[in-house]
């Protein structure tokens, strides 16, 4: 039975993250930001950083920390706000989002002291890096875990399938892959561009422990991350692109867009109502 207090705490953190993500998107002005793909993974990162992972401002350089790799790097709005929510980065760090020379650009840049394990920005690279780290941790006989978050569109990449094939072969039971299945990629619906039907079945056949979960259900996410498996875990999180802002939800226009003051106020109002 999950502690109701924990669920409440994580929901509250997710709500803060969503508001901060919208603030960052608004502050980036006409440069536009990846709003939709950030909002779809808010709950996933809230649970990982607020509950599942052993990462805090105190152990960022310790070998024994859990590792998170954002392979779908256009999810930075959720990443940076999760790091902030958990005291890993400061308000000033957050405020520097996408400013020239900032450590917190539109795609993450490796900065271990600030909790960013690797640079990402080109799709399809995070899974292999995560596997290298997972193999390394096993060789050092450390029991910590590696989490890597992929996009469903990102999984078009051949390099991702090289990773899908090899993680079970290398018996990486210290690796968890999460696929943010929000159903929309840059150019349209995932199902129209390159359908990946039967993903669960295919990956299970390949030797992964596959779970399908509602990616916005905090309690379900806690459970699925806490479950123990002797195979590499692959969690398909069904999510909504632009989740939490009605005019953004399922709307491809919000993959990368300018959040004007007017729309920002509307979006925030909706958050306030939601939290009442």
């Amino acid at each position: 039975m999950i502690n109701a207090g924990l669920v409440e705490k994580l929901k509250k953190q997710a709500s803060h993250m969503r508001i901060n993500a919208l603030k960052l998107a608004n502050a980036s002005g006409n440069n536009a930001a990846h709003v939709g793909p950030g909002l779809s993974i808010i709950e996933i990162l809230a649970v990982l950083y607020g509950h599942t992972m052993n990462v805090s401002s105190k152990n960022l350089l310790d070998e024994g920390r859990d590792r998170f790799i954002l392979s779908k790097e256009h999810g930075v709005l959720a990443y940076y706000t999760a790091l902030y929510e958990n005291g890993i980065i400061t308000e000033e760090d957050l405020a520097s989002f996408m400013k020239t020379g900032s450590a917190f650009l539109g795609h993450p840049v490796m900065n271990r002291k600030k909790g960013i394990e690797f640079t990402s920005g080109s799709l399809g690279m995070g899974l292999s890096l995560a596997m290298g780290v997972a193999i390394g941790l096993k060789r050092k006989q450390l029991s910590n875990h590696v989490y890597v978050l992929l996009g469903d569109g990102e999984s078009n990449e051949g390099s991702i399938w090289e990773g899908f094939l090899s993680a079970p072969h290398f018996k990486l039971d210290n690796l968890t892959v999460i696929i943010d299945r929000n159903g929309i990629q840059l150019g349209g619906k995932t199902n129209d561009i390159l359908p990946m039907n039967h993903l669960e079945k295919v990956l299970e056949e390949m030797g992964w422990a596959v779970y399908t979960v509602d990616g916005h259900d905090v309690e379900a996410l806690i459970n699925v991350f806490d479950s123990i498996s002797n195979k590499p875990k692959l969690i398909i999180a069904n999510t909504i692109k632009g989740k939490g802002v009605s005019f953004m939800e399922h709307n491809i226009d919000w993959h990368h867009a300018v959040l004007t003051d007017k729309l920002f106020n509307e979006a925030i109002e909706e958050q306030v109502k939601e939290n009442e």
Partner: protein
Amino acid sequence: MNNTLKNHKMLARLGQRGTFGMVMLEKAKENEDLLVITADVSIPAGLDRYRKQYPDKFIDVGIAEQNMIGIAAGLASEGFDVYTTTYAPFHTLRCLEQIRMDIGEMKHPVRMIGLSSGVVLGMIGNMHCSFEDIAVIRAIPNITIISPADSFELVKVLEALDNYPNPVYLRLTSGAPSPIIYKEDYNFEIGKTISVKNGEDIAIFATGSIISEAIKAAELLELEGIKAEVINVHTIRPLDIEGIKRVIKDKKLLVSMEEHVIAGGVGSAISEAIALEVKKPPHLMLGLPSDYSKAGIYEEMLDHYGLTAKKVAKSIKETLNNI
């Protein structure tokens, strides 16, 4: 270094690939953090004994070069001493973007071993040749590029890589047996050119095993009264700019020679480095044209590209006559 690795004749018989495998057997004895990763190219990398003797220090990712680079970078980021191997064109071009981000941008110190670079595999076609690798890796910051002159020098390079902090692309050339340049031990330092033959008239800079043709060309030229200094540019980056400037100071002609397209290769690197020098000799750039023309047997292809000793000597004489 054990005695086998000092035997330059035996090393030459093994070629650079076989020598690589021998050295790794030695390294594995003492280095607990060593890991060799391959994309299904272990036997041609001279690693058959290694993979049997040290299965726990060996990973075969299958024919998946992109995955190989990512895994290697992940392991290097955890402090492991990681070597990757496959044929040079696949090692550089198939996974170039992974190299750019995981190794160039993040500087994870992987040692990438590009096998059979140049045109030594020409008989199986251009796709197995590698004459663009220096150019593409040079365009990516932070990666040291080394191409040893012979098998003995490869041993010296691999020794120098212990505790070397930067990522490396090691370009292996020639087949087996491979030409012998060094018959006894000498002082090797990454980033420092070595003069392998003295001469005051002209300077021939060469990288990789093709330097053997440069030395022979210098001997041919000597018969005609032209004295050529031959310089081994084993490290293409960081380039020994001061050493190069010193050598060319009083020379009538600068020649660069490589088993690589002229665009972006070692000749390019030299000419970029001395572009601002007011007093410098004309530069004859010998290498491959930017062209996928015929492919074929190694010696015949070197002749086709004008990289045999005879043709090199002829090009140099003609150039000297015209300046």
